[in-house]
Structures are given as structure tokens and as C-alpha cells.
């Protein structure tokens, strides 16, 4: 039995899930296939509906 959680994918969904889990005090392992996390969102210039910078 383990209380650790595995998150596969480090895009916005994976990052948000991991942060929430860590905030709950759980140990999270995140696996990302690319050299950096961020996923597609990091490639966007600005995002709707606020047109804020995606970074």
C-alpha cells in the first residue's frame, strides 16, 4: 500500500493536479516525456478569454 500518487504528463492539467496533491500533503511523482514541463500552453502567446500571457 502506498499513499504516493503518479501524475503522467506535465501540461497545465498535470501541473495543476500535482500542485493540488502536493498541497494536500501527498508525495507526487510527475512523469513528463519532454525536457521541460508546461505542455501546449507554454507554446501559446496569450490565452482567451482574458488575453493574459500564457507563461
Amino acid at each position, binding site marked *: 500500500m*502506498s499513499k504516493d500518487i503518479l501524475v503522467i504528463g506535465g501540461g497545465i492539467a498535470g501541473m495543476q493536479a500535482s500542485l493540488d496533491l502536493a498541497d494536500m500533503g501527498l508525495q507526487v511523482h510527475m512523469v513528463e516525456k519532454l525536457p*521541460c514541463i508546461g505542455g501546449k500552453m507554454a507554446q501559446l*502567446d496569450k490565452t482567451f478569454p482574458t488575453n493574459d500571457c500564457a507563461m
Partner: protein
Amino acid sequence: MEKVTGSNGDFAVTVRKKARYVDEDLCTGCGACAEKCPTTVPDEFNMGLGKRKAIYKYYTQGIPSTFCIDAVHCRTFQKGKKCGVCEKICQAKAIDYKQEDKILELKVGAIVLAVGYDLFDAAKLPEYGYGRITNVINALEFERLLSASGPTEGHVERLSDLRDHELIHSGEKKLKKATKTLGKYEKKHKKSSADFYKEFTAGNISDGDEFAKWAKQYESVQEATKKLEALKAKAEKFDVATRLAFIQCVGSRDFRFNKYCSSYCCMHSIKEAMIAKDHEARTDAYIFNMDLRTVGKGFEEYKVRGAEKTGLNYVRGRVAEITQDENENPIIWYEETTSQTPKSLTVDLAILAVACEAPKGIEKIAEMVGVELDHNRFFKTDPLNPLDTTVPGIFVCGCAQGPMDIPESVAQASSAASRAAEAVAGKA
């Protein structure tokens, strides 16, 4: 991830940690190595529109900030070539060509699948010319053109102009080198190349291999200069791209490919058109759509603002074909359904709103963890339990579940986190 065994509350997972060939604890992310690395390759992050080195960081603000070596392109990893430049440059001694992949064995109570999506390959739709017509691009490529940290620093340029600028740049470099060689002949024989060539072609100088080479070199320099001048004259005529056509539902709502609506692309095209107009006030943007689907909090108002404040043109009708004119400008052929007339419009860039598809390799992940996929290849869920896969203890969120935008992905992620926490509560 390589292997998963066990069940809810008790999974054993094997993960391969790929070698970066750079020590994470030592690398300071200074970038000195990449500056000196002699190997240049197309940059995936910028959709191949820019360049990066063989030792690189995926993107400037990327986390972790550790650099990594792309062993497929790095000279040190390619047989027969010596390099080792980065190792010499790195003051932190972080480079480690011998680093190996590490196998990690993890014990976890729950798994969250957040593997996202891939873009539909627009080349599957030959009538739109993607991959054949240079100035037809996809929406993510356009995002990189809009970005201040992108390959054009936020200037919206036609891809054909970018290509020509690149050709001018490399042409100038080559010409400089070739002119230098001419200079050597001139110095040796104390004669200008033009004078020599006149004599040579008049038949006054005939003997000697070297003279033939000199003449040939002179001819090629003349030709290269002419070509370069023509390219420059052509490049001068073009400014930033101001006439933009956004083509909706490319690979979505199309019975040949994906029947579903990708949900976020109407909004991202409106957004991209607004930003382009913000960067360049002369921009004329047309969004070709069957209907603009702007479902979400504040989205409809966003669409109306786009038309009324920003002056975007929404054209109702599905585009039939894209061709190009002699200046490589895309011509959009469409039926304007409101007046039932076939029409065409010439633009500088055509931007395809490509569908959101389940990521490549999702079948492999599904098989490894034992979950089912739905008929669109996304992870299968139940409408009343949208985060639960078909295996207890394994959850899904974001576009791996189906097409959705960022606000929805974030909401799902927080919910999936709660479901996963619930699954391990009271365990161990």
C-alpha cells in the same frame, strides 16, 4: 513510463528517466554551452520555425532550467565526428556524455493520466495545401509567430518571407566566402577579376588549370550576386502579413476525420486575430466558420467584442479549397452561405484551426495501465464520473479525456487530484 502492475491503492510503476547528459545538480542554466555548440537544428518548441542547438533548453522560461543534449544530433554522439565543445565551455563541469538512462521503481496508490493531446495533421486534407503552400500554417505555428519570444519576436511574417530572409542570409555568407577566394587570385596575379575574365573569354589567356578555376569562380560569384539581388528586390516588396484568413474546423466536424467539435478552436482563432490586430493595426482578419462556438463563461461577449471593437470579419461558410497566386499568397475559395455565392479572397497567411486529437502513443499507455479508450481514442470515462477511467484508482484530466480549453483542464485537474487523494485516504 514502461510498466505498471498492481491495482487500486497498490500500483508498482517502472519509469525510465532519460539521460540528459547534463548533471542536474551542477548545471546553472547559464547557456554558455548552447552559445558555442556548433550544431544547429530546427526548434520543436517553435514548431520548426526557429533554430536551436544540439545542447539546449526546450524553451527559455522552461522548468527545469537544466540544459540537455539531443543525442540524435549532437556531434559527440554521432560516430566519426569529434566535438566536445560544451564540455570544454561548461565551468560547472556539468556535462556528462556517459550519463545513462535510469530505471526508477515507484510504488503509488493512484495514477492521474494527464497526457494531453496532439494536433491534427492538416496535410491529410490536400485541398487546403498545408505542407505544399508555404503560407498556409496551423494555429499553433501562428501562436509562435505572435509570441515576443518566438522566431519573429512577435512580428507576423509570411513563411515565404522568412524563408527568403534565411536564403538571403545564407546567400550573403556564401558570397562573402566566394569573393574572398576571388581576392586571392586577384592578389596573386595583380589583376581585377573582371579584367581577367574579359581577357580569358577573349581567348587571350588559355593555359593553366588555375585560370579556368578562377574564371569558373568569377562566373559563379556573378550568378550568385544576381540571384541575391533578385531575392532582395522581392523581399523589399513585402512587409508584415496583414491579410489573415482563419479556417475553422480543420479535421473536426468532418466525417472523414474526427466527427467531434474540438471546442476551443473558435475561441483561439478569435484570440489570435485580436492579438494580430493589436500588434499591427492595419491587419484585416477573416474567420471562416460554419458557426462560431463560443461556449464558456464570458466567451460570447469575447466574440462580440472581437467583431465590434476589434473589427474582425466573421464569414459563414466552409472553405472548399486553398490555392496560391504568383506571389505565394493563399487564395481562399469558399461559398458565402448567407448570399449563396461562391467567392474567393486573397490573403497573406491562411491559418488552419486544426483539430485536437488524442496524443500519439495513447494506445500504448492504455494498454500498459489497462484502461479502455473511447471511439475517438481518448481515455474512456462515464458522463457522471468524468474523471474515472475504466480502472479504479486511475483518473484522467485535461485533453487526454477529450478536447477542452485551459479553464476546463484546470477544473478537471483539481477534481482529479481530489479523486486520487480520496483513493489513497486512510491507506498505508
